[in-house]
C-alpha cells in the first residue's frame, strides 16, 4: 500500500487515438443525424459547427500521434490514483449512507487510517468538512445533498 509502484503507459500515443475516435464519432453522428448545410434555407445546420471541429480534431490527432510516435511511455505512480479511487469510494458511500455520514467515514478513514494522522487532526479536518456541508451549504445555501439509500428508507420514501 505504499503507492510507490510505477507503471509506464504510452498515453502520449493513446490520447491522440482517443481524440481521433471522439472526432470520428462526432463527425459520423453530425453527418448522419444533422447534415452539414441546409440548402432550402441556405443556412448551416446544427451539425455544421461540430463537423468542422471534429474534422480539425481528427487532423490534429493524427499530427499529435505522428509527433509522439517514437516517444516512450509516461510513468504513472499508483499513489496519485488513490485520489480518484478514494473519491469513488466517497461517492459510493454518499449514495448508500448519505452525504454527512459518508463524509465523516471518509475523513476518518483517510486521515486516521491511511495517513496515520493523530485523532486530533482527524477530528478537526472532519469537523471542518461538516461545517462546510451542513451550516454553510445545506442551511445557508439550501443545497440538498443526497441522503443515500438508507436515508431515504429512514425518511420513508
Amino acid at each position, binding site marked *: 500500500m505504499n*503507492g510507490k509502484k510505477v507503471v509506464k503507459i504510452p*498515453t*502520449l500515443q493513446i*490520447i*491522440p487515438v482517443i*481524440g481521433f475516435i*471522439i472526432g470520428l464519432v*462526432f463527425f459520423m*453522428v*453530425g453527418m448522419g*443525424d*444533422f447534415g452539414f448545410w441546409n440548402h432550402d*434555407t*441556405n*443556412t*448551416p445546420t*446544427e*451539425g455544421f*459547427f*461540430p463537423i468542422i*471541429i*471534429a474534422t*480539425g*480534431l481528427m487532423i*490534429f490527432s493524427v*499530427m*499529435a500521434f505522428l*509527433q509522439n510516435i517514437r516517444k516512450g511511455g*509516461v510513468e504513472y*505512480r499508483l*499513489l*496519485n*490514483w488513490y*485520489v*480518484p479511487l*478514494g*473519491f*469513488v469510494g*466517497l*461517492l459510493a458511500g*454518499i*449514495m448508500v449512507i448519505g452525504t454527512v455520514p459518508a*463524509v465523516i467515514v*471518509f*475523513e476518518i478513514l*483517510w*486521515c486516521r487510517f491511511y*495517513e496515520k494522522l493523530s485523532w486530533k487532526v482527524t477530528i478537526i*479536518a472532519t469537523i*471542518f*468538512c461538516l461545517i*462546510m*456541508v451542513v451550516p*454553510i*451549504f445545506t442551511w445557508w*445555501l*439550501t*443545497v440538498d*445533498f*443526497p441522503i443515500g439509500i438508507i436515508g431515504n428508507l429512514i425518511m420513508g420514501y
Partner: protein
Amino acid sequence: MENFAMLFHGFSVVFSLQNLGACLLGSILGLIVGAMPGIGSLAGVALLLPLTYKFDPTTAIIMLGALYYSNMYGGAFSAILLNIPGDSPAVLTAVDGYPMATVKKRPGQALMTANASSCIGGIIGMLILVILGPALAELGLKFGPAEMTVLLLVAMTSIGWLVGGNPVQGLLLSFIGILVASIGMDVQTGRPRFDFGNIYLLGGVEFIPFVIGTVGFAQLMQLMDEKDDVVHAVTDKLTIRGSMLTAHDWKRLTPPSIRAGVMGTFVGVLPGAGATAASFLAYAMQKAFKSEEPLGTGAIEGIAASESANNAAAAGSFAPLLALGIPGSGTGAVLLGGLMMWGLNPGPLLFQNEPDFAWGLIASLFISNIVALAISLGIIPVLLKILKVPVRVMIPVIMIVCFLGAYASTYSMFGVIVMLISGVCGYIFEKNDYSTAPMLLAFVLAPLLEDNMRKAFIATAGDISEVFFSSGISIVLTTVLIVICAFPVVRTILIKTGKYTPKKKSA
C-alpha cells in the same frame, strides 16, 4: 459632465446609515459566497433576494450590487490558495495565482495582486460606466450576431497564445473542449444533439464542475507526489507585512490591470459575453504584451489581467441592465428580477424615471469596491493560515470541497461525475504536457461563437461576405482577425528570407 453630477447625487443617496450598512453586509456576503466553490454570484444574489423584500428598492439593490460585485474578489481566494476557482471568472486567476502562491512562495503578494487589480479594474469599469452612461449600452447594441461572430473569432485566435510549447497538442485539446461543449440542446432548432440517448447529456456539460475537475481535482492528484515532503509552501512571511507588494510589483501589475480593465468593461457590455469571457480575453491579450515572467508560471501580470477584467466586466454589465433592462449575465438577470419585485420597471425608462435608484446603485458600486478591498486585505493573514495546513491533511478536505462545489453548481450527482472524469483526464493531460487552459477558453467561447454565427447566417441567408463586412465594426474586427492570422505567417517568411531576426522572448 452631467453624469458626474448625477453620480454625486447618487453618492448622496447612498450615504445613509441604512444604505451603507446594506453595502457592507452585501460586500461581506459576496466575499464568502465568491470564495465557496461552485456557488457563484448567481446563486448568491438569488439566495439573498428574498431577504430584501422588506427593504426600500434602493437599499435592496445596493446590497445585491455589492454582493455581486465583491463576489468577484472572493472567487480569487480559493483559486490562489487551493487552485480551485471559486467561480468561473477566476479560472485564469488560478493559472498564475496558484504557482505564485506555492512555487514562488509569495501567497500574500498573489492575494494582494488579485485584490489590487480587482479594485483597479472595477474602478475603470465604473468610470467608463459613469462617463458613457446609457450610451455604453447603446454601444453594446451595435454588436449583432455578425459582429459578435467576428469578435469571437478574434477571441478564439487567443487560444493560439495559450497553447504554449506544443501547439498541436493544445489545439487537439481545445477541439475536444469545443465538441464537449456542443453536447446538449441546440439553441437554434431546440433539438438535442450528441446526447447519445442520455438525458443528462441532453442538458450538456456544465462549465463549473468541468473546471473544478480539470483544474482543482487534477491538482489534488498531483499533490499526492509531494504530500510527504515536510516543507511545503511558506512558513514565514505569513503576515500582512510579509504580504506587501513591492514598488516593482506595483509597476508590473498596473499596466495589465488598466488594459484589462478597459477591455473587460466593454466585454461586459456585450450581449451574453460576461465576466468569464472577459477574463479569458484579457489573459490572452496579456500574452501579446510583455510579461516579466512567462504567464502560467506565477506571473503577477497574469493575475492582474484576469482579476481586473472580471471586475470591470461586472461593472460593465450594469450598463445594458440599467439602461435597457437587458441582463448581460445570469446574475444581471436575477438582479433584473429583483427590480421588478420591488415595483420598478427595468427597461429604457429606468434612468429617467428612477435616477435615485440607478445612480445610487452606480455610486454604491464604488463604495462596495472599496469595502471589498478593505475586507479582503484585512483577511489575508487569516487566509494565509490555510497554507500552513500540511498537504496530507489538505488532500482529503479538498476532495470534499470538490464534491460540494460540483454538486452545488448542478444540484446533481451528474455534475460530480463530470467533475471526477474531467479531473482524471486533466491529470493525464498535464502529465503528458497538454495545457488545459486553451481547452477551457474554447469551452466557454465556442458555444457563443456557434450561436452567433448561425444567427448571422440566418440573418444574411448564408451570405458569408455580409457576416464579415456588413458594418463598420465588422470590417474593423475582420481586419484585426486577418492581421492576427497573417502575422505569424509573415513573420516566418521574413525570418526565412533573413529580413528579420527574432529577439529572444519569454513564453
